């Protein structure tokens, strides 16, 4: 895949900028402001559909970080609190402590969670805060145009690692779910990917499971979602899903890392119909 990477830093020219004709009830429109081929609108759908299916629409509050996905807030039919870059887990902590029967999720990118706010999410997990942190991981600062983050994989080209991330210069990527899963306060940890339909379905199972974990009061949950960023990777839009799966997915391995407090280290989630049978909270 890497040899197909364009030696260009210009965004891809065309592609869909609609979330699709079908939209979840909790989505206020079908047009988004993000680039063609972006994976974040897909990730948003897994969140919104899970909230709706669990019957938690009137009890949910989102705490939003700062990145491209912040623009998705105009589409979200949810009460929201906008956080500073990196600080969403603390805001969700204070709000959840005041309203313990509501569902709280944070929406953060890899720059937000793994760079600026790493200590926030680690401490929230260690405290076992009853919140769900959602990480949209594309391995770049998409909003600034494709710069290296703490999750950028070795060899990955970004605007400030033009020859690829070199460990001797830029260190190694942090695998967030692997890092957070072993902490005592973490009840559920999983990493999904929206590079194909099967990945989207599995990601949604993880999202539901995380929300159910929170509503049972079992502690902290994290769902990391690998998302396409062809603009920030300098690859053609159509090559985004493949690049995500082969380049980022090789390092940030998908699967469930902790469930019901047990470490699983990358197990496949059970089939979605099985998850549905577990019922809404």
């Amino acid at each position, binding site marked *: 895949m890497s040899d197909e990477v364009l030696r260009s830093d210009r965004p891809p020219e065309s592609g869909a900028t609609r979330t699709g004709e079908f939209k979840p009830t909790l989505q206020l429109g079908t047009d988004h402001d993000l680039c063609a081929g972006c994976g974040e609108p897909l990730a948003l759908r897994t969140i919104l559909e899970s909230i709706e299916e669990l019957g938690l629409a009137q009890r*949910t509050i989102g705490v939003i970080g700062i990145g491209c996905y912040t623009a998705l807030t*105009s589409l979200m039919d949810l009460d929201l609190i906008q956080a500073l870059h990196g*600080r969403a887990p603390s805001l969700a902590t204070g709000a959840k402590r005041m309203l313990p029967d509501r569902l709280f999720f944070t929406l953060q990118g890899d720059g937000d969670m793994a760079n600026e706010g790493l200590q926030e999410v680690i401490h929230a997990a260690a405290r076992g805060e009853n919140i769900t942190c959602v990480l949209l991981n594309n391995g770049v600062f998409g909003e600034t145009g494709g710069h290296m983050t703490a999750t950028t994989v070795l060899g990955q080209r970004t605007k400030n690692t033009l020859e690829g991330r070199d460990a001797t210069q830029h260190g190694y990527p942090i695998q967030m779910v692997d890092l957070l899963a072993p902490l005592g306060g973490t009840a559920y940890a999983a990493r999904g990917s929206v590079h194909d339909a099967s990945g989207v379905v599995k990601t949604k199972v993880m999202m539901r499971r995380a929300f159910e974990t929170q509503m049972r009061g079992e502690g902290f949950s994290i769902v990391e979602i690998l998302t396409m960023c062809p603009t920030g990777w300098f690859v053609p839009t159509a090559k985004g899903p493949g690049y995500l799966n082969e380049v980022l997915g090789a390092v940030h391995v998908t699967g469930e890392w902790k469930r019901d407090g047990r470490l699983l280290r990358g197990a496949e989630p059970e089939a979605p119909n099985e998850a549905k049978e577990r019922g809404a909270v």
Partner: protein
Amino acid sequence: MSRRFMQGSEAIAEAAIAAGCRFFAGYPMTPFTELLEHFAAKLPAEGGVCVNAESELEAIGMAWGAVATGARAATGSTGQGLSLMQESISELVRAELPLVLFNLARGQGDYYQATRGGGHGDYRHLVLAPVDLTEAVQLTQLAFDRAECWRNPVLVYGDYLLAHTAEAVAIEPVAFDPLPSKDWAVDGSRSGSGSPRNLNPIGMVPGKKGIEPERFWKRLQAKHEAMAAAEARWEAESTDDAELLVVAFGSVARFTRFAVRELRAEGARVGHFRPVTLWPFPSEALAEAARGVKRVAVLEQNAGQMIDDVRLALEGRVKVVAIGGISSDDAGFGVGPMLEPERIRARVGAALAGREVQP
């Protein structure tokens, strides 16, 4: 209500709880630590929550989340910790969230931080500087009321002496006018309604693409101008025939006020002016109090910060001299040798006689 002998930190925590504060988060630091201890001990019994945050950054983030739900919430630290919170303070102002902050500082070197701030963009918030515990109990309650009235953070700025001095004090509830309902607070109930709320610092509106930052920020500017016009508070005494007007704030003003009263009793024509709000600075009241005086002497425990606001208020009409200065104990907690009634009196006396005071 009966008076009890208690430390400043305990009285402030009790006053906050009496005002309805149900969430506090903090990180230990001298001399703020005891305030955190008292909230940790007292809040759970009131159905509240105190979180021992892992950093000041997280403390203010947690308090931000709590206040966004409509709960009365507070955080605080010492000036050093407030430095870490500056980014959040400036954003809380723009998100129009009524968080109450405490700076139990080391001396008075945080005047600029309190009144100008180190955050980004145009932002303003009230700063209340109590002179003693009785006033701290009142101003703590006022802070929660004003914060919600304006939907804007309020800072209560005290020091080591206020936090650690024990006095007999009553937690008398202060009666305030009713406030508008908190229909801005998020509780999840408007999720799925088609018209949810988004508490944000830049004017984002659910269902609407894009933002209008200029319009949003100009509206905030107008609000802050209205706050400045309405909220100035001060205490002035013996100003009518004064030749010298002494200006001081916070715990230090307790010393200067004592010295001025002694000198006045001995026939000296000296007056005292104490800003209770450092922002908005009571400029018009100070200009009025300084009418006819020969000299204005500013005594603050720092290298000279409030003196800028005094000079701005007086617009060059009166000579303004500094008679305070940096003064600290060996640990750097700001309990310096200058804070002796005799030394303060000597400095005021020198200013009265037209002599220079060495800082």
